[in-house]
């Protein structure tokens, strides 16, 4: 009995000049739901309708979705491969030059696999494993942390221009770290500097959030102006600490403001790695809820998100990631701005894939920037913050110009 009715309906629809295919598909979907409501009164009808309903769904959604997934797969694979290549090349380059094969030999030797590639000179292993590798690994961690913190901030501010350095979180963290050095504090042992960086970053990001939010959203102009103010305050604090400090702490504070991976030690990595791992894992965990934030906070709440809780969690995570990055590498600007933006252009704004590819992209960007910093000028180690700003500044300008052209700028 069901089939004739169904056909009749479909025919009717056709007769009425409705787009037959669409109407039929719609009907199937309706039937699925209807059957569910009537407690499985007609088994066969349910099955038929359900399969038809799924088919419709595939027609509408499957194409862009698989397309997006393939893109994400490609981007992830490409970034991972690029990171491996850059790391191997970077390990070999410098005053003490090694071929990539030799680098691989040393690395394999370190994990207990003997190959013919390993160079005979014992200095090679020392240079690679104790000097270059910790520096590069710290760079990868810092890059991932900064890029993910950028994605997180952009998500809660609903604003693609939020970045740790732009908004002043990095300066806040640097101020905290500088304070612990200037006053020679060691309350938390080896965790003292990161802990102070964390506190400084947390205060900064909370201030920015509270000040620049009005109603449901954050205006771009307010956000950037708040960033300027926070940067100014933190800058004044840093200047005062520089004035107070001894020659050696002064040097360290200057180093923070420029950003550098020089002198990274495995002990630093033992500290930074868990911080970054926790931050990135938490970011991936909340990614789906951050998608809903893009609809505005009220709507996110209507969709079941505990907005206040998520907001506070994300702010703490941002402070955590930024402190992990800043504590030993100083202020490295624009990573959190450039990387998520490029990734969004490549794979779209959904936060789960964005988080993962941004972490990889950030790691790659810092690896490349540090390679340039180490090797561009012979016998000199350029500050890495300078390199990223050199890339990030023009990129920021390009973003501004593009937005002005497209949307008439920010009010």
């Amino acid at each position, binding site marked *: 009995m069901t089939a004739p009715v169904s056909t009749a*309906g479909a025919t009717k629809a056709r007769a009425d000049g409705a787009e037959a295919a*669409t109407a039929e598909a719609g009907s199937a979907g309706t039937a699925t*739901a*209807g059957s*569910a409501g009537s407690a499985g009164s007609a088994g066969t009808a349910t099955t038929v309708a359900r399969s038809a309903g*799924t088919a419709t769904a595939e027609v509408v959604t499957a194409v862009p979705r698989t397309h997006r997934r393939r893109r994400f797969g490609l981007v992830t694979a490409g970034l991972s491969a690029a990171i491996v290549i850059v790391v191997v090349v970077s390990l070999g380059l410098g005053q003490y030059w090694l071929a990539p094969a030799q680098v691989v030999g040393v690395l394999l030797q370190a994990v207990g696999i003997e190959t013919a590639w390993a160079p005979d000179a014992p200095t090679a292993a020392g240079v690679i494993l104790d000097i270059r590798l910790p520096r590069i690994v710290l760079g990868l961690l810092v890059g991932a942390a900064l890029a993910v913190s950028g994605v997180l901030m952009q998500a809660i501010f609903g604003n693609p221009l939020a970045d740790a350095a732009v908004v002043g979180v990095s300066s806040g963290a640097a101020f905290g770290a500088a304070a612990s050095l200037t006053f020679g504090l060691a309350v938390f042992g080896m965790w003292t500097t990161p802990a102070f960086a964390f506190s400084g970053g947390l205060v900064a990001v909370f201030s920015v959030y509270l000040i620049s939010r009005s109603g449901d959203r954050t205006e771009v102009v307010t956000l950037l102006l708040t960033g300027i103010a926070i940067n100014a305050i933190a800058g004044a604090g840093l200047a005062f600490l520089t004035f107070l400090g001894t020659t050696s702490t002064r040097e360290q504070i200057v180093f923070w403001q420029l950003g550098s991976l020089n002198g990274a030690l495995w002990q630093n990595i033992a500290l930074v790695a868990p911080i970054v791992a926790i931050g990135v894992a938490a970011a991936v965990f909340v990614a789906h809820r951050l998608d809903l934030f893009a609809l505005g906070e009220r709507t996110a709440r209507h969709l079941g998100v505990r907005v206040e809780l998520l907001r506070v969690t994300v702010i703490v995570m941002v402070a955590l990631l930024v402190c992990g990055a800043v504590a030993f590498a100083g202020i490295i600007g624009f990573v959190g701005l450039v990387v998520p933006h490029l990734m969004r252009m490549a794979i779209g704004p959904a936060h789960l894939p964005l988080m993962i590819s941004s972490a990889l992209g950030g790691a790659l960007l810092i690896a490349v920037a540090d390679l340039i910093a180490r090797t561009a000028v012979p016998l000199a180690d350029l500050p890495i913050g300078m390199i990223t700003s050199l890339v990030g500044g023009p990129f920021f300008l390009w973003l501004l110009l593009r937005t002005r052209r497209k949307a008439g700028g920010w009010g």
Partner: protein
Amino acid sequence: MSATALGAVGLSAPGSAVTANGAADPESALGAVGLSGTAIAPGAAAPGAGGLSAPGSAVTANGAAAPGAVLGAVRLSAREVTVTPNGAADPVVIDAAIDVRAGELHALVGPNGAGKSTLFGVLAGDITPDAGDVSLDGTPLRGIHPLLLARQRAVLLQQNAVSFPFTVEQVVRMGRAPWARTPAEDDDDAAVARALQVTDLVPLAGRGITSLSGGERARAALARVLAQACDVLLLDEPTAALDLKHQEDVLRIARARAREGAAVAVVLHDLNAALGVADRVTLLSRGRVVASGTPSDVLTASAIEAVYGQPVDVFPHPVSGTPVVMPRR
């Protein structure tokens, strides 16, 4: 299975499959509660789009049939609600009471500044009233976990800006977020597809939401709300940004959802729309409920003139007989 027949007609041809309804659909939720009637049926099929699945999924999720199955039962209720915004001297909503019932489209009307949006915010749970209670199925709104609430009521706001260039399909899929990790998750693809179809958005499904016009964005937001598959719906001026055809589509969808047993509250500016589609109208003025009842009882010429300060004529439409409001010029 007549739902199929009805659905086939969908929005495109309301009224055409009427005969199929009452006869062939005795077991559907509608049939069970005795909501027959030819005029009603075609609408009911249309939002099967976001629609019919709602009661089904609610049952799966809660383990028990939602009270929404009983037509006329009060789902969402505000009692003697008073709201004074921070910093304001006078309350913007005073002692307002409203009951949104299963199977009814309830229109909230009133002039600018009458407190419609505030009362709407109270019903949505965004605003905690300074006095009075708001409850869903008898449970105070504040006592319901946001996620469980999101599986029972969906809200469409006027502001539907999206911060990042998600595709329309992704935005609509966000409406399925409350059902993640529940059995109803299996219905995600179908629900999204139906919502896109009923809102006329299939051709735009892959487009970035930020590149769309205001009206298209508003429809995407409506599709998201339909995909959420809730049987309590709150819509704040859903027709505001839309052209004539899509305004009517939205009103039809809202009405059809009500016909399926959903409790629907809609803030409307257009009094003719309220007269044409609402089952019940609550008229607000200066924060107070002036009248509540059937559209033709509430929206009389004298009441409209008193509240809006604009003389009007209310007369029956020459064809349909529905009352029409015309300002006196």
